[in-house]
Structure formats: C-alpha cells, structure tokens
C-alpha cells in the first residue's frame, strides 16, 4: 500500500504564491483534489509527482523523499497524467500507450510479450483498442484523453496521479473513467486526481480542498463538514445534495 506525504510545501510561480505550507497525507484509495480555478491543485499534483521542486518542504513516498529516488525508480513507483496532453509527432495510439512501459523496459530495452499484453489490456479497458493504429493527431480531444489515460495506467505504478482526467470526456466516458479508477483502487493502486467535476470528485473516497494555495480541509468525501467547506470555498455558488444514495453537486443559481 502506497503512502505519500507532502510536508510543509511552499511553491512560488513568478510573483504568485501557488502553494503555502501545504502538509497532506495521502493513503490508500481514491483521493480527489478540488478547489476553485487558480487554487493550486495542479501545482500540488506536479509537486507530488516530483515534476516541480518546491521552494520549501518535501514530498515523501513510502518513507523515501522523492528527491532521493532516481528518475527511473520514481517512474515505476508513480504514474502521472498531464492536464492537457500534447500530441505532436506521428505516434499511433498503441505506440503512445506502449510508452507507459518505458520505465520498466528501460530506454534501450524492447517491449516484451508481457508488455504488449498489458498494453492491449489497458487499451481495451480505456476503450481505445479499436483504433489502436490511428495516429494521435487524428483523434478527437476525448479520444486522445482516453489514450493518455491508458498510457498512465499502463505504467502499472502503485500510485496514479491524474490532473483533470475528465478533460474532453463525454458523460459515458466520465462514468467509464470512474469505473476504471475504482478498479485500479480495488487492485491496490492509490489514485490521486485533480477534478473540476465536483460530483465526480464526490465519488472518490477522500476529498482534499485547496483554495488560494492553502489546504483548507481533507477527509472523507461523505463528510458533511467537508461539504460545507466545499460550498464556502466556491463562494456559495454550489449546493451538495443527496441523490440516489450518493452525493452530487449542483450550481446554486439563486444563491
């Protein structure tokens, strides 16, 4: 079981304090990071992934500071999905998903039969197996996002960090994503995702609420105290309601 600890992290981007003294423990299950635009959610995820060194503080993965891990070790222990995946070049869907196995094969290694089988499995799970031979630049935004998601899952890392995985996804594929993430969690993977879709975020096990670079609250996504904090950080523009045995968020238009 993977445990990630963020300890007293400060990050300044230009003249903006993107994160201030953020301390957070991420344990087993699915954690959703939410907050208003510019709250520092993606910055926090990039720090967790070791892609952005903090000005102060550190990130510890299973007792080892991220900075003590080599790039190869880190790549096998955590997988990361970008908010806006780039799609230059001439790679096919299969070739992109296969890149998820890079850390396991090594830069100079070749994919094994096991790698190919895994690539095929995750493409099937993310529903992109049917067009595995198409090139990335030929796909729609939603199709491309499913390929990037498959690429991240193909890493088979015990920690999966996803920045806005629902970008460009239509409702059926948002549901597919939720099921996929739940299956990952059931198989022992710790999932952390930044989400704008608050109803989807409430499907996660844990909620982390960030606002203006600070950690406002964290805990169970079913905790009504946390729901009140959520409403507060969004300036009362949302309501959290119970609907068919689950919590949903709706805009509070008359509020």
């Amino acid at each position, binding site marked *: 079981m993977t445990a990630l600890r963020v300890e007293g992290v400060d990050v300044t981007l230009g003249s903006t304090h993107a994160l201030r003294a953020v301390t957070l423990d991420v344990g087993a299950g699915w954690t959703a990071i939410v907050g208003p635009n510019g709250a520092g959610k993606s910055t926090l995820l990039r720090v967790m992934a070791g892609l952005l060194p903090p000005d102060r503080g550190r990130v510890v993965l299973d007792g080892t500071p991220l900075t003590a891990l080599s790039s190869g070790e880190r790549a096998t222990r955590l997988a990361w999905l970008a908010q806006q995946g780039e799609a230059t070049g001439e*790679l096919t869907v299969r070739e992109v998903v296969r890149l998820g196995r890079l850390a396991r094969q090594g*830069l100079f290694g070749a994919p094994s039969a096991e790698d190919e089988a895994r690539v095929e499995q995750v493409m099937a799970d993310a529903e992109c197996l049917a067009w595995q*031979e198409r090139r990335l630049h030929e796909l729609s935004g939603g199709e491309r996002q499913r390929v990037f998601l498959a690429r991240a899952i193909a890493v088979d890392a015990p920690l999966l960090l996803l920045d806005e995985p629902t970008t460009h996804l239509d409702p059926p594929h948002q549901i597919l994503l939720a099921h996929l993430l739940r299956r990952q969690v059931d198989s022992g993977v710790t999932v952390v995702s930044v989400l704008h879709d608050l109803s989807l975020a409430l499907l996660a096990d844990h909620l982390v609420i960030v606002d203006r670079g600070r950690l406002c609250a964290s805990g169970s996504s079913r905790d009504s105290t946390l729901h009140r904090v959520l409403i507060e950080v969004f300036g009362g523009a949302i309501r959290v309601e119970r609907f068919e045995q689950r919590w949903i968020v709706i805009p509070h238009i008359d509020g």
Partner: protein
Amino acid sequence: MTSNDARRRRVLATGLGLMTVLLLGAGLAAGSEGWSLPALWRTWNDGDALGIVAAIRAPRTLGAWLTGALLGLSGAVAQGLFRNPLADPYLLGSASGASLAVVLVLAASTLGGHAISFATADALARFGLVGAAFVGALLGVMLTLTLARGAQQTTRLLLAGVVVGVVLAALSDLVTSAAPDALRGKQAFMLGSTGFLGWISCAILAAGLVVALPPSWRLARALDALTLGDDTAASLGLPLLQVRVALVGVIALATGVAVSQAGLIAFVGLAAPHLVRRFAPAAHGFSVVASAAAGGVLLLLADVLARVLIAPDEVPVGVLTALLGGSYLIWLLRRGRTP
C-alpha cells in the same frame, strides 16, 4: 503498426535503397562531359580513366551521400528534439557556428600569406577544420538555446536561431574583411560543394555517421516520449537533461562534420525528414534512420544534377539544394500543408 503503415515503410526503404544504388552508378558515370553509362563501361578497360573514377568521382559520389545522410539525420533529430518541424541545423545556429569556426581557421591559415582552399587543404588542415566546425556547431546551438532560454518556445527558438545566424555571419564577414585571403575558401564553403570530397573526406564523413547514427537510433524512444511533452516524458523516467545533451551533441557532430567537408548545403536537413514523414509517417526509430537515407539520396541526386545540368561547368550543389528544397517548401505551403 498497420499493414498499410508497414507496406509504406517497406516501399520507402526499398525505394531509398534502389535510388541509392542507381544514383551511386550515375555519380560514377557523371563527368565534365555530362554523364554516360557506356563511357563508364569503357573506363574498366582504360587504366587512366579508371584512376580518375576511383580517385575523383567515386569519393565525391560516396561523400555526397554521406554528407546528405548526416544532414538528414541531424534534421530528423532536431525536429524530434525540439518538437518543431521547422527545426534544421541551419535554423539552430549550428551551421553558422561551424561556418564562423571554419572561416577563423582559414583566416589563421592565411596569416602567413599562404592562402589555402578546400581543394588544397591537406589532411591535417582537414582534421583542423573538422574540429573547428564541430566546436563551432556546438557553440552555435548552445548560443541559440541560451538566447531562447531552452527549446520549448518555438517562436523564441526560431528568432534566437535567426539572430545567432545573422550575428555569426556578420562576425564571419568581419574576419574575412580583416583576412581577405580567406575569402575564396569562405566563398567555396558558403556555396556548398561536393567537388572537393576525397577519400579522406569520405572516411571522416563515414566516421561521423558511424558515431552519430547509433545514439540517434538508440534514443529514438526518448524522442517518441518527448512528443508527449516534457513533464510526461520526465514522469516516464526519462533523464531529460542527459537526453537533451546527448541529442544536441549528435546534431552538432553530424552538422559539424558535414559542413566542414562540404560547406553549407541548404534544405537537406529540413526536407529529408519531411519527405520521410510524408511517405511513411512513423515513430522516430524508423524516421531517424530513413531520414538519413533520404538525405543521402537527396544530396546525391543534387550532386549528379549539379554535374550534368550545365556540363562541362557545374552548378554549386548548395545552390541546387536551396532551389530544390525551397521549391518543395513553397509547394507544401501552397497545398496548405504547413511543414
């Protein structure tokens, strides 16, 4: 890989192989009187003529292919590394850096009043030019990257490349105005020529290709990963700094060796990867090697044309590649396919 993709790659590989063989033959047959296969056949029975073919046409022909291969390779690596289809050695400052370095060596060689040209440069001078061109190419690329503050901002990168090119060309002019005896050698260098390529040049060019091709091919998966963006590539365990340093080194080596032997030959580094992608789009493992082969074929074709178009005179091969490559890019733009 679809069967269609695989078929296109096979067709391209076969076509490049066949064209290389045919153009090598044409290069051996092309002389100052035009080109003639029967004349080539007759040289087998004529010791003197065979000597000319072995000493002049054969190394020139092979050298043209090797120079083109180095330029095609560096172009493919540059376009992949900078995720910029407009990146070629000339736009990144490596060629202008190499040019300035070569001009400095030529000027230093003429300080004693003994002008040297590419035709008369001995083996030692050649090795000196190779070293200078390599260092110049490396410094030119570094200067461009420093001015552009990295390689991610396409516009900034291109502007920095243009600025470095202009400034280094001005410095080069300054050197030749102070040492006018170097002007002739510089002019030959700037026009680009395969006419002076001998067996020593071929050995240097082949060594450059042997050194530059394996790391390019081995790092092809790194180039593939970079197409997904820096952060994603880093999250996949790619040591970005080391990979960039290695690939910039490959670009500088390949360009430096090519321009030190044949001068500035335009557009081969830009056009060869585009042609490969157009006929057989593929991951970098294939496109890097195919671009090298396509660069070889392009420059060999230009070299043969340069020899026969206005025989017994010659069109400078660099002028021909600039005309052909420029026309190709204009054609692409007119078709609405921004390269």
